[in-house]
């Protein structure tokens, strides 16, 4: 009897295996580690279980930079995955290389999947699009920098979360210092205090429509009075004990907030899931990124950060069909809501956002809505995104110069002159690669 059972199950396994042979298999290289990686695997499993024709295998490739480099090397060797996750700073590289990817809009339409760019929330719609507004990469983990705060600390100091930087430096920070807290820390100077500083204040970040019109002749516009005034203020806050900087690493700046030393932390809306799961010893909440009232009276939406999924070129029609099917699954409100709920990344479609609202997600966790609300603020002339080549290196230059400002090794004026010169040299070099 036992033997018969074994034989039967072996036969069953063999049948499953042969059924699996007929499935079209596709691979997905991503940079989501830890708890995020678990959620990615969950999405892949759900997709595989939802139908019998396709099977997707997610592979974790390290950091964003490592994933992009691995994808590029694989593409050059003809071994590219079907789907590659590319982060915001790598967008110009991958979108500039026409022929490396199949625009997601074409992929979906060619495979009979309905596509309407208006279904996507306004903040994510055009970041990974070309200059004609055609969507090239499918926004996946979309986030924006928001302001987290320690509710207990602010109550103790008798202040409310600051709306403007003026309020922060005159009211909030001194009161917090009095109450024994360091007012502020942040986790990504180029992303939060540079890129999104420009979108929040609707300042042009680069010529050629923030670089969307092509690499040729694009120049960075970071060396402006508003930016210089901001960094002068930040250095001043640091000297006064209102602000602290713990190095270039992300978590080095997040940890003091979690430990309750720092009262306000600027991080990613995608950090929400992690913070909630950490069981912090205080109550925390979040709100919009502050702005300088002296620069603008009408603050605008911020850029999306995070990454998008690109369908790599050079794959068979069958596999592309599988990729399209997966993207269709991924953009379903149910999938998006699950991803949003588990991680804190914003839902990319209006339908998913409505579903989260209807489910009462934001009644339970109001802070979870801040990212998407901020991305849905009024758009300005310069808020759809930016497109600059060799941008990873440009960010490295910014990190270096900002670090030097904050450790007193250089002046704000010199630092911004350096950033401008080096970034423009890199942009010019990138333009030469695009022939």
């Amino acid at each position, binding site marked *: 009897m036992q033997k018969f059972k074994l034989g039967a199950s072996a036969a069953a396994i063999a049948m499953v295996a042969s059924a699996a042979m007929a499935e079209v298999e596709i691979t997905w290289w991503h940079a989501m580690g830890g708890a995020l990686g678990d959620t990615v695997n969950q999405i892949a499993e759900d997709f595989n279980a939802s139908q019998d024709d396709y099977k997707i295998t997610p592979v974790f490739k390290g950091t964003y930079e490592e994933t992009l480099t691995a994808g590029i090397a694989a593409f050059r060797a003809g071994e590219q995955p079907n789907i590659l996750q590319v982060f915001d700073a790598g967008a110009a590289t991958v979108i500039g290389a026409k022929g490396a990817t199949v625009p997601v809009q074409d992929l979906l339409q060619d495979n009979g999947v309905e596509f309407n760019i208006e279904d996507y929330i306004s903040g994510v719609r055009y970041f990974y699009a070309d200059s004609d507004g055609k969507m090239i990469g499918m926004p996946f983990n979309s986030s924006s920098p928001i302001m987290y705060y320690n509710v207990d600390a602010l109550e103790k100091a008798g202040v409310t979360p600051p709306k403007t930087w003026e309020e922060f430096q005159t009211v909030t920070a001194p009161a917090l210092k009095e109450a024994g807290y360091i007012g502020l820390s942040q986790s990504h100077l180029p992303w939060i205090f540079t890129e999104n500083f420009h979108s929040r204040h609707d300042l042009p970040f680069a010529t050629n429509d923030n670089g969307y019109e092509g690499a040729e002749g694009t120049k960075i516009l970071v060396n402006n009075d508003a930016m210089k005034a901001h960094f002068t203020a930040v250095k001043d806050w640091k000297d006064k004990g209102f602000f602290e900087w713990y190095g270039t690493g992300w978590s080095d700046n997040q940890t003091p907030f979690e430990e309750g030393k720092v009262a306000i932390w600027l991080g990613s809306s995608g950090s929400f899931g992690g913070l909630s799961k950490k069981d912090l010893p205080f109550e925390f909440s979040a709100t919009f990124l502050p702005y300088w009232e002296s620069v603008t009276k009408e603050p605008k939406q911020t850029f999306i950060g995070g990454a998008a999924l690109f369908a790599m070129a050079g794959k068979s029609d069958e596999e592309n069909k599988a990729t399209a099917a997966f993207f269709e699954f991924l953009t379903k409100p149910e999938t998006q809501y699950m991803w949003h709920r588990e991680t804190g990344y914003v839902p990319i479609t209006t339908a998913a956002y409505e579903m989260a609202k209807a489910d009462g997600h934001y009644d339970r966790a109001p802070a979870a809505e801040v990212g998407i609300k901020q991305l849905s603020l009024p758009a300005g002339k310069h808020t759809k995104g930016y497109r600059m080549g060799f941008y990873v290196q440009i960010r*490295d230059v910014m990190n270096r110069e900002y670090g030097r400002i904050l450790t007193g090794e250089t002046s704000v004026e010199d630092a911004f002159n350096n950033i401008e010169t080096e970034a423009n040299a890199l942009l010019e*070099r990138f333009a030469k690669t695009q022939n």
Partner: protein
Amino acid sequence: MKRAGFTARWLPILLLMPQLVIIAVFFYWPAAHAVQSSFFLQDPFGFGSTFVGLDNYKDLAGNGEYLSIAWFTVIFTVLVTFLSLSIALLLAVKADNVLRGAKTYRTLLMWVYAVAPPVAGFIGLIMFHQSWGPLTELARSIGWDFKLGVNFNDTATAMVIVSVWKQVPVNFIFFLSGLQSIPKSVREAALIDNRSASGRFWDVTFPLLAPTGFFLLITNITYSLFDTFGVIDTMVKGEPGNNPMTLVYKVYVDGFRGNDLGGSSAQSVVLMVLVLALTVFQFRLVERRIHYT
């Protein structure tokens, strides 16, 4: 005297082939490729590439940041090489005199050799952790507000300490075996001539250790220039920012993080030339003064 020789011409060539093929495929071919890419600016995905002549090199020479990284690399290499050699020599001389428990003592000193550079870097991160690192606290107790990853000099100090700590055991093993191969008769003769221990060391032991020392000097310079990569990468957490880095790490940052293949290749070529010059210099000038038995 009869000379052994090959009767067929092809046989020695055939026997050398595996080695030659390995060298050609793994060393010359990539090196040639790097030289070629250094004259182009290339789209990362390999679609477009523009011949730019010597522009990549000119950009390097005109880049103040690159020159200061080169300068840091020189200081770092000198410090790491000097400290790892001198500390290891001191330990070896002392260990050579230990009679009781000598084996345990030596084994303990060699242990760190087994630690991989990234692991060494990680241990460094823990020891110098900003809020609770034991070495950070030690520095604070003497009034040095040590900040790893924030202050350039503090990070550089930590990198040097970790790199030296990782390299001392290797040097120790070599120095110890070098010391033990000095004939007893020579030492005893010296003991009669000179009663001062330090005098004997500088006049007799040190010159006899020179071949070992020369070999270690080359390996230590190579170590400081190239093998400290793992230590640096771990200690800056992959994000150099305003932290110090060496030329090799810069090649990685621009090539593998930034996907600037042309610029990164030019930097590799500069390094190749540097190593070549260093090797020629060492063998021409230093080797002449050293006598192997």
